[in-house]
């Protein structure tokens, strides 16, 4: 049986959901019998190719996030939003009620201890969005796993269900919204 191809990425997240993915611990070896990795933070593949499963951590906070997310949607048959940030925007969305210009000038111009204050303006820096958005507002998402982060056990249960062709279900104790 050929292996399923899996890609993962972190957008505006903290990597905690990826950390939790690695919390499947030794079960990683079992997983590797069933899947192979495309672009993930663990491999040096810089762009996602055709994949069976795409896992996205983090919401979208800038233009680059949007581009990566669209690339994932175009290439992945099944797209999963993992963790509060991808599902709702999460903690980074706390800035949504603030004025971005105020944030910038506070951090780069007026914060004590900051010398030569200026606001970074290089074209290499992707344009930030005014608000942080959950990913389903921009692309179609097939599954959502809540939690900040969902536990390694929850991720394991979900993926093994999906890979085996069962409808993924997270029973009591695995669904958490913290």
């Amino acid at each position, binding site marked *: 049986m050929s292996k399923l191809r899996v890609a993962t990425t972190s957008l505006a997240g*903290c990597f905690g959901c990826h950390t939790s993915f690695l919390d499947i611990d030794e079960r990683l070896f079992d997983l*590797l019998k069933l899947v192979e*990795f495309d672009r993930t933070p663990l491999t040096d593949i810089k762009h996602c190719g055709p994949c069976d499963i795409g896992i996205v951590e983090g919401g979208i906070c800038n233009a680059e996030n949007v581009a990566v997310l669209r690339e994932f949607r175009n290439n992945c048959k099944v797209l999963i939003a993992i963790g509060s940030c991808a599902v709702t925007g999460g903690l980074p969305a706390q800035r949504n009620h603030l004025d971005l210009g105020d944030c910038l000038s506070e951090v780069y111009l007026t914060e004590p201890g900051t010398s030569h204050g200026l*606001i970074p303006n290089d074209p290499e820096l992707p344009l930030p969005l005014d608000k942080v958005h959950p990913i389903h507002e921009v692309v179609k998402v097939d599954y959502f796993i809540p939690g900040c982060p969902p536990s390694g056990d929850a991720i394991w249960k979900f993926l093994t269900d999906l890979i085996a062709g069962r409808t993924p279900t997270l029973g009591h104790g695995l669904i958490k919204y913290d």
Partner: protein
Amino acid sequence: MAFELETAEHPEKLRRVAIEPISRVEGHGKVTLLLDEDNHVKQARLHIVEFRGFEKFVQGRPYWEIPVMVQRLCGICPVSHHLAASKALDQIVGATHVSPTAEKIRRLMHYGQILQSHALHFFHLASPDLLFGFDSDVAKRNIVGVAADYPDLARQGILLRKYGQEVIRVTAGKRVHGTGSVPGGVNKHLTREERDALLKEAYQIIGWSRDAVHLVKRLFEQNLELYNEFGSFPAHTLNLIRADGAMDLYHGGLRARTMDGKTLFDHLDYNHYWDHVFEQVKPWSYMKFPYFRDLGPAEGWYRVGPLTRVSQCDFIPTPLADRERQDFIAFDAGHAAAATLGTHWARMIEMLHSAEMIKDLLHDDDVLAGDLVTTGERQGRGVGVIEAPRGTLIHHYRVDEHDQVIRANLIVSTTHNNQAMNESIRAVARKYLDGRELTEGLLNHIEVAIRAFDPCLSCATHALGKMPLRLELIDAEGRQIDRMVRAGDGTCSC
């Protein structure tokens, strides 16, 4: 002020090559190179490309929420932020000394964090470069390749990390983003069963950690010249130090030394960090550039992290790790202890130290019983500093009489290393890339240098730019859901 290769004279005439995203690191970043027609590198920059603004949006929050909020800066070292914030808030609630139980449980959590983060970095992220070669096959150069060729090593890496995560779980309540530490102390003890289960494995973990130190030593011996020289540069240093000069990753005073060993300050009360550390902003990165005020921005940049801590402490207060430290410092007349890749060796020594500390703390019955929380006279300002896996981490808060945070300043480890990482990639660009046809393997050399610092680019994200630009965000159905216009003066409207 100009650093070599920081800014090309005529960028418009040059060819741009980007490494994007930097992979096998935590967080979002990219490197850009500008080359002339003969492939000579004229500019090399590490950019931090994301803005989050934690300092701003914690304002107005009640102070007790802060330790659980700010750890969401980073899912790989959440405990570091959890504890640095708690230490700052200890000062706010007047807990000048937390109880022995609280301090030991927090230390346990912290050493669990160092252990798991160092294991993750070495085995999962960096080891493929070191085991297979910097320009080895890209398909193989990852943990899956390591698992195929070195199954025992990969297994040990995974189990070391698992152990650290379990130490975090029993002290913090959960593996990622726990809630165990609170202003003034902690909120739970360990149960006897939890303690015993961890103790049972502690000796195996110490053994594997020591094997990992020896593995890096062997890699140095096999490639001495390359490992000593690769991406290396002289740097000033900053780290926490215990009163007797011992390595202490949880608490101490600040030690700063120049690249030629002169002391700038030592055992400095970290509440006064801001008399000494300033930050400069550059237009091409959201990450600031800290420097020692006395030396100024051109000369005053410095390096933090494992290499600094292991080479600048007077000793390590656990026997196995200290023996390894002495070996490391003496190796090849001190060259490894000054080498960028020596950071991997130092990191494994710290992992060993953490494993030894965990074992000692688990033997201490204070973690099973005793006072959890202490309070005293309420203060308006608090500073917490800790040695996170990647280096010195500073949290600083002001809280008003309504218990709301009114000001926050965070200087994270990776930010301290900003200039150092840029120096390192420029050293690699000069030596390995200049004048050559760039291949994937050559570009990976740049990332190998960055990975030595184990940067947490996720921690380091701050703010926005200045060109007039317009962006529209269209949803899956083609409707516009966000629109951003950035004016030329850096202000935004939408």
